[in-house]
């Protein structure tokens, strides 16, 4: 469902030196699996998720979503994703009942499907009581539930969620986590990034630890426990991150490249997207 091969993202900066935010990340997420991408701030989680959701172009490497290359076939790939972050805002002057059909139409759904999906999502996520209130007047939890409904309107096979429970109360948190599980059980591939390690431990089938743009450890909980020799994910996380910084660490060495890298060529990841043309 999600295949990421040696993904690299370099940002040009105003100082003239380039910043490598993602330094060769590879992982896969299968159907009916929740994959947790964990890491400290600045590890490259958000950049990776933004590349996968088509908001950024990779400098090199490939990412395949539901069989579509995100660079070569960006719009089809985007159509297969339900994308949700703590930052994805809602239109303040529209109500959930107006907003959901809008995103349905943008995804190219027909009228009947939209009606059915809106009805289902409003019921599943308990949006009914506030479905006709403008989003600007909703609480954080209500907004995030609406946002999830927005991401799921086209019933995409892949869900990419960047800290979906940030700042939520226990009740909203519970609704959302249950919903993610339920989507997994319906065969969806879920890629999740979070800072709440307990939540990740309970929810994720596999976890990738991202640090300084690279995956330093990957596997299900028993594998990670065996690697770090610790029980709780928080301890595993701290142990692996500090190991990766020690000079004896034999895994992929984190780099801080400052030189401009070789410019990205469309040939690196297949043909250029036919609908966008080559970048100039």
């Amino acid at each position, binding site marked *: 469902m999600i295949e990421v091969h040696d993904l690299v993202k370099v940002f040009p900066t105003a100082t003239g030196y380039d910043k490598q935010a993602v330094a060769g990340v590879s992982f896969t997420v299968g159907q009916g699996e929740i994959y947790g991408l964990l890491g400290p701030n600045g590890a490259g989680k958000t950049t990776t998720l933004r590349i996968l959701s088509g908001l950024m172009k990779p400098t090199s490497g490939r990412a395949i979503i539901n069989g579509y290359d995100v660079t070569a076939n960006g*719009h089809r790939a985007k159509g297969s994703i339900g994308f949700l972050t703590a930052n994805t805002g*809602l*239109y303040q002057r529209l109500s959930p009942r107006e907003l959901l059909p809008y995103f349905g139409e*943008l995804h190219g759904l027909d009228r009947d499907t939209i009606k059915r999906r809106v009805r289902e999502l409003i019921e599943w996520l308990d949006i009914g009581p506030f479905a006709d209130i403008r989003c600007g007047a909703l609480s954080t939890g209500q907004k995030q539930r609406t946002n999830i409904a927005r991401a799921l309107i086209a019933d995409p096979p892949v869900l990419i969620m960047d800290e979906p429970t940030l700042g939520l109360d226990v009740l909203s948190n519970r609704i959302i986590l249950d919903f993610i599980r339920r989507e997994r059980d319906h065969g969806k591939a879920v890629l999740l990034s979070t800072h709440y390690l307990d939540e990740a431990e309970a929810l994720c089938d596999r976890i990738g630890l991202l640090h300084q743009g690279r995956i330093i450890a990957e596997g299900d909980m028993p594998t990670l426990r065996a690697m770090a020799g610790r029980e709780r994910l928080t301890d595993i996380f701290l142990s692996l991150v500090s190991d990766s910084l020690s000079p004896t660490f034999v895994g992929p060495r984190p780099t801080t490249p400052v030189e401009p890298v070789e410019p990205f060529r469309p040939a690196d990841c297949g043909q250029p997207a036919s609908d966008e*043309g080559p970048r100039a």
Partner: protein
Amino acid sequence: MSRSHRVWVIYRKELLEILRDRRTLTAMVVIPVVLYPLLMLGFLRAAESEEARLRGLEFVVEVPDERAAGDLRAIIDGVRRYQDEQADQQTACNSESPGHAAVPTADWSRARFDIRVRPEDAPDQQLGEEVHLRVRVQSQLSDRNGAGPAQLSVHITFNEVNIKSRTAMEELSHILEDFRDLAVRERVAGIIEAHAISAGVSPIAIDTILEPVRIETVSVATDRQRGGWALGQIIPIILVLMTITGSVYPAIDLTAGERERGTLETLMATPVPPLQLILGKFLVVSTLGMLTAFLNVASVGATMHFSGLTRSITHSMPVEIPLSVLPLILACMVPFSLLFAAILIAVCSFARTFKEAQSYVMPVILGAMIPAVAVTLPTARLGGILLVMPVGNMVLLAREIFQGSFLWSQVAVVLISTSFYAAAAVAVAVRLFGQEAVVFADAGSYKTLLLRRYYRPSPRPTLSQALLLSALLFPASFYVQSVLTGSSDNFIRTLGWLAIAQFAGLFVLLPVALTAYYRIDVVETFRLRLPPARAWLAALLLGCSSWALAHQFVALQTRLAPPSDALREAFKLIESQLAAAPLWQVVLLLAVVPAVCEELFFRGFLLSGLAQGLRKGSAIILAGLVFGIFHFIMDRVPVTALLGICLGYVCWQARSIWPGILFHALHNGLLMVLNAVSPETVKWLGMPDELGGLLPARVLVPALALFAAGLCLAASCNRRAPDSPATLPDHHP
């Protein structure tokens, strides 16, 4: 879902959302419909009442002694009595013959004066508040009947910076001038009478002495023209500025505002191409710009009309509002509103926050105001470079339309140039909107959008680069052509400069420089590879026959819409100059240079760029239309555009620019060379001397056959070489 439906979905949603915003409604409805009329009417009323108050004041005038006071009172009373008598006579006269012109009683001063003798020991106080004027009167009124006429000299001291003192001076001066006129009339009457008595003749009419030359002016303007003129002074600039102002808030809200609220990320993650997102948004912005402009114009127009401002502009002459031109003006405003919607969206796409966008928008508004205000001079006419000056041309066009003095060719040039700029601005907006550096604050710097080292090598220019360069070249070529053709009567010399400035400079050097800077493949962009042999043959057939078809087309067009006499004269002059020039010069300047340079730009850079965002057919047709429009002579645009489309097709099929150059050069130069080398052949071809003369069938039919054969050959080029490395992509956005 079709592209247009998606754009419509975005448009509908954005419009609904923005109309729910109080700020939009305030800016769009409350300010123009309520505030402007109130302000305007309030200001007018306040000014009127202040004036009335001032005129109604009793002004205090100080004189040095009782005698002067008596003289001044006598003058004022005398004038008032005369005015009353005149008014009575006028009333009687009007009741007898109502059509008679009224005496301008409104001009008579009704101010009251309190004349006081200034005590000798009075302190020397400032004129203005308590005392408004000081007056000295020299000579005596009683001396008037003495020996010879006496001269009265009135010396008024006032305070220029005090409004009451100044008004008092003006009012008193009016009365004194009336008194002077009366005195003149009285004295001259006395002289005439004395002269008539002494000469024993009847006295001549006094008016022939006092007014030996009577001046009457009659305006031929109709009420409708007068109304158009009055509205044309004010409405166009309001229309233009309000379209821009009305677009500002939605443009910020739909770009930087959306980014600030985090919805841009949500939107960019949907499977909708940026072009469609931008189109939806920019149609909303231009709709709101137009609506704001329309409401403003309706409101200001109504206020002007009902408050009497129009009458004051036309000096109380009757006016008729030319409502019938409003649809045309509004239609002309459409590309203009699209232009500013696109510019504002492009500018605001740079901004990460609402505040940042506001500061970027200010220079745009100021930049638009400069040309708008510059052309409001009554002497500015819609012509020359002003025809293609953004903003300025729209203000002038709206004014000309109001005044009923526009030409359709002017409307065409203004609309085409504005549409050009709008298309380029949209292309830039699409390029900027959704850029990583713009959407995400942490995703690098704006330098990536400009600096060469951040550009990846690409085979062809983008659609936005092609449109932007065309939009820049359009006014530049127009300017170069109008300057050069106006500067010299020597057509060959003009052509020489044109070859250097326009063809070599604008059509070749600029695109090549841009291509090199942005790491675009020069060979691929300008299609410099050699074509298959059959493409050369196709070009030869087309070039040898196209002139006949073009001639026939122009002849038929001339019969439908005869060209102006000026254009005929210009063509004749050019023909005579060309006949006198050496053949090599004519061929070089009229056939070779244009063929090479125009092909490099229109079929090279432009067509390659258009092919990046459009289908084959649309790209070829658009490049052909642009080619036609760049020739600037309206009568020749259709035929040149058709030629451009054929050239574009040949170039596309051959995947090379060279056959097009041959075709183009032959088309331009074949007949000239034949005419010089073998005039009898041209005679045999039956070329008519007059514009509008048709070719004989014995020429036309073979030409048509050759042309069709050429097109078939060109069509076969692409089929025969499917694996050529220079294959043009047929992009489907």
